């Protein structure tokens, strides 16, 4: 029952929120109250989780296909649910202040609740169909949240782009899920996993008996590897879309048009990170398919480095955070891509966990700073951290964590685990471990560089220090809580919720070395200058435009589709409909001709017709008879 409560509470909050949207006070109470209740349930569920517990769903009768609609809860999912609920609550509390004067706060809060519910559904889903449900609902909520300020054309465009790009990628996701389910005749996660896994033990035994490889596969009923790879690649395509990975990366930076709390939610705990959760759930099958792993590995390797470089050169710090999200999500996914089958994907999930904490902290803090400074550009935000002590601390902790400094903060630890996993993968398995490892190391350096840049810019000493007045205590509180969790969150590994190995000191040393390089590079221009201006002045405009990928999307996809649509519309009215109109015209013409022929009404013509008719009929009759 608990998982249903976990999903149901935020959804109920959404429904109530829509109903009460006129009354800000009630809407706030519902959003925050039920958000807190969700968090409570999540923490309880996490604490009480002991092994994997499936809650039976209502089930659908869909012919041959079994759709149980089950949910499942285990410690890992409990931990993820808890962090999702926590970030959601933080966002809800924060937006009561941030959107205080907004005339559509009610809708916003309700959408956030729904978004949370959808993400929780993905987390606790034990049924691929439910995963799709949560997945798509998140997409819709992102549309509403990004386009919240729909009076601004840029916001409308960003929302449309976000939804359409992810939806196009979802073609793959839906087809992949359907294909997997079709192979099992069920959408239940456990039922789907079984037939698609490589029956390794059986095959090994058969091979040991001297059977040929092909015979062994057949004898053991091994699934069609090519089909499995295709389906998994399709699923991965969907995940690349939702997680804003190459080649779908461009929507996420534009999504910064939404209110900052929405960005925090989308980036930290939901949507973009959901792909990791889904892949982790499918990991047993995924691990058996090197092709799919390579596909994912290449995509995320490219993404993490590219996004990190783009992040470094952004003029807009909020966009810098967005690109950093793209990069960090790639890091999470890289753990899944590279992990040896025996290890599981928990390293990625752990990074998700920590990323949720520090990224929400950074976003909420930068939103505050931007309000104080009056803009999100690097120039405007210069020194804005001085507005409140919690901002300075928050930025310090957050950027340390983002850079992945070991031991000190949560992000450091989880990134170590990803590195270790990638190393293991590179050593043991036939996945893209080496590639991922190289990309991770390079990315770590670049990440350190742009983290340094962010911190430098935000905490620079400026003459006129911005002040933020009227920020309620709860918002301070929320940020402090996040700061604390960012620092001490690493302790989560002690709960055993994530199955990860110990990290040796050697790795930490290596990390520090890499990070040091990054920091050193960033500091080349001194403490007072924006490293981006120092190091990559030429690259900045290109990076701000996201390498012009938006134009590419338009040229390659939007314009041809619209052209095709115009052609189709033309054909529809002028060709397909032409036969309809043509038959009408033909009938009328025949009528006219017939009437014309009978116009004179000569008696002789009538007689002539009779005679002709008889002759023709007689001839026909005799012909047909003979």
């Amino acid at each position, binding site marked *: 029952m608990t998982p249903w409560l976990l999903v149901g509470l935020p959804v109920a909050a959404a429904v109530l929120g829509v109903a009460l949207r006129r009354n800000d006070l009630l809407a706030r109470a519902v959003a925050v109250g039920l958000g807190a209740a969700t968090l409570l349930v999540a923490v309880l569920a996490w604490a009480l989780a002991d092994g994997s517990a499936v809650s039976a769903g209502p089930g659908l009768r869909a012919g041959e296909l079994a759709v149980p609609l089950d949910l499942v809860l285990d410690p890992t999912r409990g931990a993820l649910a808890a962090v999702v609920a926590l970030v959601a609550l933080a966002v809800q509390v924060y937006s009561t202040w941030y959107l205080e004067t907004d005339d559509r706060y009610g809708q916003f809060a309700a959408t956030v609740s729904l978004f949370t519910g959808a993400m929780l559904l993905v987390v606790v889903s034990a049924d691929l169909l439910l995963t799709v449900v949560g997945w798509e609902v998140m997409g819709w909520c992102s549309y509403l949240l990004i386009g919240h300020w729909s009076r601004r054309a840029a916001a409308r465009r960003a929302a449309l782009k976000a939804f359409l790009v992810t939806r196009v990628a979802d073609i793959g996701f839906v087809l992949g899920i359907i294909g997997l389910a079709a192979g099992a005749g069920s959408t239940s996660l456990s039922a789907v996993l079984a037939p698609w896994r490589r029956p390794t033990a059986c095959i090994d035994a058969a091979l040991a008996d001297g059977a040929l490889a092909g015979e062994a596969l057949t004898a053991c009923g091994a699934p069609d590897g090519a089909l499995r790879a295709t389906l998994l690649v399709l699923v991965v395509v969907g995940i690349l879309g939702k997680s804003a990975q190459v080649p779908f990366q461009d929507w996420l930076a534009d999504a910064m048009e939404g209110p900052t709390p929405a960005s925090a939610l989308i980036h930290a705990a939901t949507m973009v990170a959901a792909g990791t959760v889904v892949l982790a759930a499918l990991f047993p099958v995924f691990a058996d398919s090197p092709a799919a792993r390579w596909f994912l590995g290449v995509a995320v390797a490219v993404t993490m480095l590219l996004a990190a470089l783009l992040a470094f050169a952004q003029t807009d710090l909020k966009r810098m955070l967005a690109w950093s999200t793209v990069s960090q999500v790639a890091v999470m996914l890289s753990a899944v891509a590279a992990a040896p089958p025996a290890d599981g994907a928990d390293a990625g999930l752990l990074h998700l966990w920590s990323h949720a904490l520090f990224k929400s902290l950074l976003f909420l803090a930068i939103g505050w700073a931007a309000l104080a400074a009056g803009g999100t550009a690097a120039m405007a935000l210069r020194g804005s951290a001085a507005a409140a002590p919690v901002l300075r601390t928050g930025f310090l902790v957050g950027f340390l964590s983002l850079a992945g400094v070991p031991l000190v903060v949560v992000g450091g630890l989880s990134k170590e685990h990803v590195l270790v996993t990638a190393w293991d993968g590179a050593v043991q398995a036939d996945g893209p471990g080496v590639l991922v490892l190289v990309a991770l190391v390079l990315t770590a350096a670049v990440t350190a560089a742009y983290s340094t840049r962010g911190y430098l810019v935000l905490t620079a000493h400026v003459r006129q220090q911005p002040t933020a007045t009227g920020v309620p205590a709860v918002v301070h509180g929320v940020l402090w809580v996040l700061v604390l969790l960012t620092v001490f969150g690493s302790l989560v590994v002690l709960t055993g919720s994530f199955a990860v190995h110990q990290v040796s000191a050697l790795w930490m040393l290596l990390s520090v070395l890499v990070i040091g390089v990054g920091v050193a590079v960033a500091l080349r221009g001194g403490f007072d200058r924006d490293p981006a201006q120092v190091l990559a002045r030429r690259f900045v405009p290109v990076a701000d435009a996201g390498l012009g990928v938006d134009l590419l999307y338009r040229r390659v996809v939007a314009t041809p589709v619209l052209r095709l649509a115009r052609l189709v519309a033309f054909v529809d009215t002028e060709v397909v409909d032409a036969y309809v109109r043509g038959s009408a015209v033909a009938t009328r013409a025949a009528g006219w001709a017939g*009437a014309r022929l009978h116009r*004179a*009404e000569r*008696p002789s013509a009538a007689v002539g017709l009779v005679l002709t008719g008889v002759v023709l009929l007689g001839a026909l009759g005799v012909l047909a008879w003979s």
Partner: protein
Amino acid sequence: MIHLLGPYLLASALVGLGVAGIAARRNAVLLLVGIELVLSGSLVLLVATQAAGADRWAAGSVLPLFVITIAAAEVVVALAVVLLVFRLRGTIDLDAPSAREDVS
């Protein structure tokens, strides 16, 4: 049945002549003549059939009597109508178009 060839040929010739007359003639009264020729061809055929093999009721012989009577009655009506038409239109040319103007 060689002896029936003659009557059959006669019947065919009469019918053919009649049809040709009907097809060619544009005068209502001459059309009647054509029709009578076809009828007489039919009568020859009926009688010939009767001669070939009698049916139950000797219909081949009886029917011509019927037909002649009907034809006579018809001709009466026909001539009456033709007369009427001539009175009203001044012509019994079958090629004359109707005076209809509201053609669609």
